[in-house]
């Protein structure tokens, strides 16, 4: 294991370990029960492999999930874990993170869990900027309930509950998160261990809510949903890899670029047809979310052409829990409360 000297400012209050950890230390004794071939396995293995980098005491790490195949995740991590109810993990994790700054709190959720039943909690966690790292496993289907369409399924999708094709319009989780004032938004892919690890590293370092959408394959109910991005041939054609400080260039031979057109729109262009200086150089730390949003909109929900992965946004805003603690400290500045004088109040009288 290479030890990486990344600062994790968001984890400053979480106790560090002196022990050398490995992926094995993060494997629980529970039998993993996902379908063989499920994308969740690779995510689990990447997360277990990444955790030692944080250098935290294992007992100060907590995974909280909702309900769904993806939400079984905490059982397999040898940390503290809470498998809760459908959609509510961000709310539960908020209560924990606000009261326990000494913990590193991770939420694992699915596209149905986070965006259907739990949509309200997700957007509010994002706008508040609670110190949570949310891993959204997007397989564009309800896995656990055996294959109904989800809020990320493309229009027209034929599933058990949509025999004639879904007439719902789909959410793009990155666009949604950016619209909800998220300070950190990223997208990665289950099978790309290196990329996912890099994104997790950035997420863990971020103070506040980090939303990481992970494109995940459900080989039972929605096999190949992301194939256009993963296939050796089509992948490079479709995937835009966002890298800070780099011009946005993609395609098998870098023949496509992202530019700002004359009318101000963000567009994909033929590299040969534009000058290098017109190519947008990406910077996830830009305060204005406009560019990140525009890039998230390039993706076609059916063909998946022009789908960006990487860190879309990573900006600083004090986390909710920090602000809450500051107010508490301010209130207690004159000394802690005295219960007897509180209940005595000012308007009292003596008898006897």
């Amino acid at each position, binding site marked *: 294991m290479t030890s990486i000297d990344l600062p994790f400012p968001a984890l400053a209050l979480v106790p560090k370990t002196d022990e050398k950890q490995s992926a094995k230390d993060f494997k629980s004794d529970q039998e993993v029960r996902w379908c063989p071939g499920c994308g969740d396995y690779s995510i689990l293995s990447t997360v277990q492999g990444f955790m030692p980098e944080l250098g935290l005491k294992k007992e100060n790490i907590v995974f909280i999930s909702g309900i769904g195949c993806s939400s079984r995740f905490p059982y397999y991590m040898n940390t503290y874990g809470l498998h809760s109810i459908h959609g509510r993990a961000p709310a*539960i994790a908020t209560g924990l993170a*606000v*009261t326990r700054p000494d913990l590193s709190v991770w939420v694992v959720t699915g596209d149905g869990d986070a965006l259907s039943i739990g949509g309200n909690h997700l957007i*509010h966690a994002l706008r508040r900027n609670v110190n949570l790292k949310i891993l959204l496993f997007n397989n564009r289907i309800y896995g656990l309930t055996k294959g109904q369409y989800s809020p990320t399924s493309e229009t027209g999708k034929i599933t058990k509950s949509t025999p004639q094709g879904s007439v719902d319009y789909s959410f793009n989780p990155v666009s949604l998160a950016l619209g909800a004032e998220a300070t950190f938004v990223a997208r990665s892919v289950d099978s790309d261990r290196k990329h996912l690890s890099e994104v997790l590293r950035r997420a863990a370092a971020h103070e506040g809510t980090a939303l990481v959408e992970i494109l995940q394959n459900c080989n039972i109910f929605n096999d190949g949903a992301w194939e256009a991005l993963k296939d050796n041939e089509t992948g490079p054609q479709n995937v835009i890899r966002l890298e800070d400080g780099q011009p946005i260039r993609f395609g098998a031979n870098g023949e496509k670029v992202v530019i700002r057109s004359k009318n101000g729109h963000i567009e994909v262009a033929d590299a040969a047809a534009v000058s290098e200086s017109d190519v947008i150089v990406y910077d996830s730390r830009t305060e204005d979310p406009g560019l990140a949003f525009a890039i998230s909109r390039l993706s076609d929900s059916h063909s998946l052409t022009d789908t960006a992965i990487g860190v879309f946004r990573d900006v600083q805003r004090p986390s909710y829990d920090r602000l809450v603690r500051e107010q508490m400290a301010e*209130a207690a500045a004159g000394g*802690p409360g005295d219960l007897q004088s509180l209940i*005595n109040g000012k*308007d009292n*009288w003596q*008898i006897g």
Partner: protein
Amino acid sequence: MTDQVAEKQVIPVDHVIIRFAGDSGDGMQLTGDRFTSETAGLGNDLSTLPDFPAEIRAPAGTLPGVSAFQLQFADHDIMTPGDRPDVLVAMNPAALKSNIGLLKPGGDLIVNTDEFTKRSLEKVGYSGNPLEDDSLSAYNVHPVGLTSMTVEALKEFPLSKKDAERAKNMFALGMLCWLYSRPTDGTRVFLKSKFGKNPDILGANIAALEAGWSFGETTEAFSVRYEVKPAPMKAGTYRNIHGNLALAYGLVAASDRSGLPIFLGTYPITPASDILHELSKLKKFGITTFQAEDEIAGVGAAIGASYGGSLGITTTSGPGVALKSEAIGLAVTLEIPLLIIDVQRGGPSTGLPTKTEQSDLLQAMFGRNGEAPVPIVAPQSPSDCFDAAIEAARIAVQYRTPVFLLSDGYLANGSEPWSIPDVDSLPTFEANFATELNHTNEDGTQEFWPYLRDAETLARPWAIPGTPGLEHRIGGIEKADGRGNISYDPDNHDKMVRLRQAKVDGIAASIAPLAVEDPDGDARVLIIGWGSTYGPIGAACRVARKNGVKVAQAHLRHLNPFPTNTAEVLRSYDRVIVPEMNLGQLALLLRGKFLVDAIGYNQVRGLPFTSDELVGVITNVASSL
């Protein structure tokens, strides 16, 4: 005050019930509160009942816009704000119309004649002026030009007519303080702190207060004044307190006595929001308040905080409980402490947000999927909300369980004098977080089993994140007994369902037996209630006994589990009456559990019982024996 006036005759009375009624904008709640404060300071026993509209400011002068405040004060201990007022202060025709039916025949009616214009009379459907016909002949009417006299008294102040008129509630207060021989010092101090920054408004309010007092002294409208002597009360320090405030303080006390920081996760709803307002001011007590995006997030965050070692609390009313049900079920199976405070209001659906009801008992008892027992505690008076909150927290912490605290709108907004306890005398209870491995395998290795139970309480260990070596995973899926891993085993599920039930049932071992009040000891009729009906039932029993009817009274603080002697108590009487502000929810439980032929008396009018109606019920049942 002025010495030109001959002293009017002072008549001693043992109790008085006053009702202030006016438009929402007339400041009747404030007037009532101030009168209450002055009365409390004089050492009377008292009890108050605000009765406000659901709308914040319904159109002025309309019936839905009427806001009222009733209080009873006495020279002896009393249990309710009283049934029918002796005095009604009606600030406009709407207030008169909606409240006159309550006034005792022969009672004093003080009306603000200035507001009895043709237009305002028509607005509420009076065809003529009731002050000018004989429709009020049953009452002792005191017509007073409250508005005009206030304006006249304030003419020296640089105020608009509208602003001057606003002070008419202080005029009314001054007049009532004179009439009932109350001081006004506290109100002056109060006005100073409220309007200190605006000397004209402050001066005007004080001037109006004084003008009202002088008017009482000089006018012929009042020929006598009254006096109510202090009530004998146990020695101690007293204050007047509302139920919601007492409840909030009880939570702070629970935190103090358990050493657990409080986390309140909640969403605003009438009549529970004041608890959030109070606690949000008390951050220096280590209290975190979180106004969530909805009720589900409120309880969810509280569960998360409890998981991390805080005392997680959520406050709401009936509609909010409905939203929280699934999460409460999670807390049941996680077996972690959680307090759910339901300040009940009229239902179903939005129902009557500002009115009281006891109709969430069965929701608290059964309103979850699966076998999901939750202990239930109920306060019986405004000040008792303090002790009930501590008791609910004790159960939650000691038994690692969600607990319902069922208050209601009447308790929340009502007030009474409270003998302030010495903090050191309050019960303590400890979290006893788990720190050690607790299971030894056959090969001698040790493990942490999150569902190994305490032999006595059946509570499981509370192992909070950050505790080394106790990392474990739990959730809403059924857990293997002891070890806590996911288990779909049929026998294990059966066992776990029974264990969770047995744990809750076992709480009975830690609660006081049901006490019965029966002064003569030979009553054959028992009247048993729960929650805020304590006052009206108690007052009714006193009257019934004075009338020679023998009746025993018992009141349940714990509704799940019931005290261990409940069956015995119920079986000791020939008749058991259960008055409730619902259609018979406790009666259903008592019948189901104890096979007792409970006689329900049920009203859902959004108002507390009158003791009068309960005297009737008791008398009828007793005479049928």
